[in-house]
């Protein structure tokens, strides 16, 4: 019972949560620096997943393709920033929002154009889980799940060290805290923005590859991620990287657990509706606590 619960609900929930966390952390950092809800973030995830697909085609493993996906997405997003967002830096939030939406459509159309609508998987066939028989039952754990969790933890730690130990990372927090004061202080704000884009794109790319490793990739995967990663960002308090990580993991676990047959063998809600959970969380938060659990920007 407990083994089934952990194997089939808790572990997949943590994995999904890690993927959400990687998506939400970039989103929240970008919002902190630019006050800009980046609607194309999900499609950057999709691009990352497809770059890794190309990497797999070149003979790399999906995991080995992650640095490639990070690099390509960072360069792509910096180019997009230069071409579309930077000229609009002082435009109203609505204009930026729409431009983000436009970029999202462009990225999606490019994926459809080059790879078609079908999607796929990196590696055919079914992988057997590792089985750990214990006195509480047989725990079945997918090896890929351990890699995804490990990778997400590693990235979160690296990001934490960057933000707390390096000059540029501290400048990023300073700018997120008070952009006007950052300028007055002589912090090179455009450089901070560029680094934030690069980090946001790299984490989104990783999230996309992880999601495709865990399930599959298709041109709409990122768009479907958009709602949960926005909800995760808001849950953790906008502009707070650790809040976004927390929000992502909580949402991922919650989505799987509401479908678990914990109470008398019946799931709390039908698994078909579990994606609605993010939406419900977001609505409730925006009504009752719009700054999130950890007091982010409103």
């Amino acid at each position, binding site marked *: 019972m407990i083994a089934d619960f952990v194997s089939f609900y808790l572990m997949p929930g943590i994995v999904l949560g890690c993927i959400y966390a990687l998506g939400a952390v970039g989103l929240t950092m970008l919002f902190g620096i630019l006050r800009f809800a980046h609607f194309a973030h999900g499609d950057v995830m999709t691009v990352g997943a497809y770059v890794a697909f190309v990497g797999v085609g070149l003979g790399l493993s999906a995991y080995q393709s992650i640095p490639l996906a990070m690099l390509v997405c960072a360069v792509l997003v910096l180019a997009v920033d230069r071409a579309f967002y930077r000229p609009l830096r002082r435009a109203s939030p609505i204009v930026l929002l729409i431009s983000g939406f436009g970029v999202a459509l462009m990225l999606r159309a490019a994926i459809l154009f080059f790879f078609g609508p079908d999607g796929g998987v990196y590696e055919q066939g079914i992988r057997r889980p590792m089985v750990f028989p214990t006195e509480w039952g047989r725990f079945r754990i997918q090896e890929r799940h351990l890699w995804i969790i490990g990778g997400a933890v590693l990235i979160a730690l690296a990001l934490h060290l960057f933000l707390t130990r390096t000059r540029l990372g*501290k400048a990023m927090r*300073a700018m997120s*805290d*008070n952009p*006007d004061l*950052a300028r*007055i*202080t*002589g912090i090179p704000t455009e450089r901070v923005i560029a680094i934030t884009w690069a980090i946001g794109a790299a984490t989104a790319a990783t999230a996309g590859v992880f999601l495709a490793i865990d399930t599959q990739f298709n041109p709409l995967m990122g768009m479907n991620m958009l709602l949960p990663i926005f909800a995760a960002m808001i849950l953790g308090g906008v502009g707070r990287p650790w809040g976004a990580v927390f929000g992502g993991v909580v949402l991922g676990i919650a989505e799987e657990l509401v479908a678990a047959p914990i109470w008398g063998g019946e799931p709390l809600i039908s698994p078909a509706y579990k994606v609605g959970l993010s939406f419900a969380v977001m609505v409730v938060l925006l009504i009752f606590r719009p700054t999130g659990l950890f007091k982010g920007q409103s």
Partner: protein
Amino acid sequence: MSVLEVTEIFGGYGGADILQGASLRVAAGQVVVIIGPNGAGKSTLMKAVFGLVRVRQGAIRLGATAITNLAPDRMAQHGLAYVPQERNVFVSLSVHENLEMGFYSRRGSPRAATERIYSLFPDLAAKRKQPAGSLSGGQRQMVAMGRALMLDPQLILLDEPTAGLSPKYMDVIFERVRAINESGTAVLMVEQNARQALKIAHHGYVLQTGRNRIDDTGANLLANPDVAQMFLGA
């Protein structure tokens, strides 16, 4: 030799000009204070010097360099530091990190500079790991001034550094301004507490409707009956 020379500037926030030909001069090693009624353009003048308000006409020179309408994020490179009146610390960063940010445009290790700030403001040394947002108003003002001084600026602009502070902290801030000045940094300050500010000022300007009204030494302004009647509550 003058550190700052503002010559007949006009400008504002896009509508009617708030600054209507104001001029001032800060000589090396001086404390210069700007006083005047509300709406006289005191803070606007400071912002114009720092490139935060568009100057339509007139010139601003820092030493030998023309800095008129230079972008604010370039001012640090020219050795000009500005402490706004409000929202002048990074609230989520620690005291120490706030100071480190002030060093951003300089090269090398910030250690010597931070130690200098901690010796200037011993209150901060004990709180260096605390988020600046958790400090009292007076201590925040010290962090803000410390952050600006990390640049080792030629000139520091202070916009109402004692606004909203308790009398005890007010005295501390004025005393520290004097100490900062004695260590060689010129100070240009807008102040509501005119009497105390003029006591430490070498020179003062009375600004009214965006132009100079009176311009004299700090001591003479304190003794001037017009000034006393208007601003010193005597």
